[in-house]
């Protein structure tokens, strides 16, 4: 594992990765483990999104999930992200997150687009405070959509995170307002995704929908993907999930490296988003946000 690395290694900007060590050629095929299978599926989804949509972007929230996504995309496209990485910035992230963004945005040669969110007054005042704060991000996203005219946005949500996300599709159409119709979802099977959003609407693409929190960490470790140090325990606390500074809280934890995180996850009964204030305000706050276009 490495944190904010400064050396630029094999994953730097050189478009031609180094030639591998000569691995003995055999008749047997290395069997795929669980992470290999997840990776292959995600790569397939990325390539479908890139090939079947006209103008896509990846939503980079700087967290562990979206960093894994960028890594997977670079695997899918042989080292590069052939579309923009969009950071819808509430302006309230942790300083470590901004440092991470600026450093790896360069090192990974991302076409980084940072888009601001509107002021809090512009957001539905009937939402509870934290949800209202999160809804700013939805508004910022809508503005970015209008500005660039993306027909597909790649988002790093996972089914195991939160109950309403469990109902999601891999290619999930959003209405003209960016809203999600939970009840009218197209069927999706055998990896055939509906890639034709209605005129003016766009698709959300979820390449890591089938991953779990533990998968993300195990893969981060295996692939040596950089992370923000806030995920690791300091003074008995760590962040399991990173959002805006004022609505994200750390959880009690002694896990100071990824192995310890994995052990902790096996034992914990605390849900991942426990530290996210907005999930706990009212029962339907999260679903209301999602219907309105929140990730």
């Amino acid at each position: 594992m490495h944190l904010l690395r400064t050396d630029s290694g094999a994953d730097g900007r050189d478009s031609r990765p180094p030639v591998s060590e000569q691995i003995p050629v055999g008749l047997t095929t290395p069997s795929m483990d669980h992470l290999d299978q997840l990776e292959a599926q995600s790569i397939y989804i990325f390539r479908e999104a890139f090939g079947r949509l006209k103008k896509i972007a990846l939503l980079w929230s700087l967290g562990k999930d979206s960093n894994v996504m960028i890594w997977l995309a670079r695997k899918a496209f042989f080292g590069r992200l052939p579309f923009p990485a969009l950071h819808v910035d509430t302006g309230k992230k942790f300083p470590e997150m901004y440092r991470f963004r600026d450093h790896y945005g360069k090192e990974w040669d991302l076409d980084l687009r940072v888009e601001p969110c509107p002021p809090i007054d512009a957001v539905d005042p009937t939402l509870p405070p934290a949800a209202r704060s999160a809804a700013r991000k939805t508004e910022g996203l809508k503005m970015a959509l209008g500005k660039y005219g993306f027909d597909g946005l790649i988002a790093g949500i996972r089914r195991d995170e939160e109950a309403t996300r469990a109902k999601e599709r891999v290619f999930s159409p959003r209405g003209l307002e960016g809203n999600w119709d939970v009840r009218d979802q197209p069927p999706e099977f055998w990896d055939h995704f509906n890639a034709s959003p209605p005129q003016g609407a766009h698709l959300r693409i979820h390449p890591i929908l089938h991953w779990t929190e533990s998968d993300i960490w195990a893969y981060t470790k295996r692939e040596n993907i950089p992370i923000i140090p806030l995920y690791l325990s300091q003074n008995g606390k760590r962040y399991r999930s990173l959002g805006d500074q004022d609505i994200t809280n750390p959880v009690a934890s002694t896990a100071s490296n990824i192995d310890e995180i994995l052990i902790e996850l096996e034992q914990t009964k605390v849900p991942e988003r426990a530290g996210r204030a907005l999930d706990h305000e009212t029962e339907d706050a999260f679903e209301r946000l999602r219907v309105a276009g929140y990730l």
Partner: protein
Amino acid sequence: MNMIVTPASPATPNGTTSMPNGTTRPQVRIVIVGHVDHGKSTLVGRLLHETGSLPDGKLEMLKAVSARRGMPFEWSFLLDALQTERDQGITIDTTQIRFRTNSRDIVLIDAPGHAEFLRNMITGASQADGAVLIIDALEGVRDQTRRHGYLLHLLGVKQVAVVVNKMDRVDFSADRFKEISDEISAHLQGLGVKPTAVIPISARDGDGVAERTDRIGWYKGPTVVEALDQLEPARPLEALALRLPVQAIYKFDDRRIVAGRIESGSLIAGDEVVIMPAGKIAKIKTVESWPVTPVAGRQGAGRSVGITLDRELFLERGDIIAHANAAPRETRRLRARIFWLHDKPLAKGDQLLVRCGPKESRATVVAIEKAVDPGELSSVENKAIGRNHVGEIDISLSNPIATDPYTENPRTGRLVIEVSGRIAGGGLVLSVDAGQRAVPVDIVPVESALRLDERSARYRHNGAVVWLTGLPASGKSTLAKALERRLFTNGGSPILLDGDTLRAGLNSDLGFSAADRSENIRRLAEVATHLARNGHIAIVAAVSPAREDRATARRIADTAFREIHVATPAGICEERDPKGHYKKARAGALASFTGIGNDYETPQAAELVIDTSARTVSDAADEIEQMLKTTGVLFDEVVDLAANI
């Protein structure tokens, strides 16, 4: 061993599960079907318990909860409890429960009841290797029992174990058991399914599930757990013939990478492959990856890979890469067993989009052979297949696709059907039109003796396909000839390919139907591209009204393609009418004539748009020449080569 309830994960490609000790166990996927009240949940609960698959304390906890509420404990509570947990976090779509027998990892594909039943059965159970059909000993074989048996037949599930449940309610009567056993065996055999076992059980008490108790002492066959342990896993995908459907071709740098997911079989650099449906042969040069590349090892089913080939061949999304000695069949016609999800029933003559992996083709329903309402199990009608019904149809495809019957390859032998951009159904390929078994054509293109730079040094241009599209009489041929003369005068090597001229020879077998027009364009593009690759400038003058056809031409010619829209107003074209076509068409004597209808699809991103009514031929030729310069086809004035020395 803990029970793992997971959302649908990518299918294990080789049908085995890696074990912590490094060995592998065959994985078998099953469904449990039968009448809704005949004890499915109880059997599942009991199986999980008998195979030691429950989390520690789960059973005690549930028993305690039941006792507190003053209810007798039921095994089905286990599933309810799991369902609740599942609702809190995990997918609702296709849920899988895993447990182990002596030698198998069993994945139970949950097929919940009610409205979604059929879809889940087909999307879930089509991957099932075996099924358990459950019957209540007291109630016997019911309509729903028969329907589910029929569905198993439709889905091609061959290994079916029948359990006769609630034997405690018929006092473990061997006679009653035999009665039901005979009836269901006859029914299943009528459908071509031979039950692997018929087992008397009491899921509630445990008889026959993992143990042959005294109460069923007269029964000598396997228990449920033993029957599951004998299920044959599907042939591992990796053991099947190589199928790598092309998902995309990437040229991010100097590599031309063919990307896709290996659906079956395996490959390694150096393999000779055939690209279907065209049947071209090539060798795999490298297997590309990131961050380390190239990779030397063999790549098996389930991997998303990228390969490079040893020669430049025209490939496109949807082609299938296979080994030359085991290529899939190429077909324009196939029979499929489908399930229909769309509100509007599917009828003969309907136009569809068929997707088979990344390949898509427009298609027409030629015949509906069977239409079945699985709720009634009657062949309702033979004209249309209604929502949530199943049937067998013959499909004719406008583009040939390479596919396999489902029984030979479960991955490439399935397809989905789209209507108006939305998935409307899915199905399994039963057979492809006989007589079209593709014979790979070993065309090893002969490399030219000349190098491209030798040619371009002489002609002072690169190869290109200049594609003039526009209404009849818009001035395409006139412009094409002027351009040809101009380029030739300058020492270049232009070659005119006129649509009408080629129709007299190469394309004389083609008419003017949409399919024939597409083929006409494809051939023009292939010929033109061949010329361009050899350094010539192929000037194509063809109405080419369909945007999709022109897109095909662009894909074929790739970076050599320069599209010029000759956008002379329709009124002026009709006025000119040098060949008298407009007049004939107006008189109704010329069917399928582009020009007087609205069937010309205007290019949206042509490299150049020219209205010949507003310029002289010479001015227009200037414009084209200029465009060819700025887009790198023509070299600018013999730029002072000396200046660079």
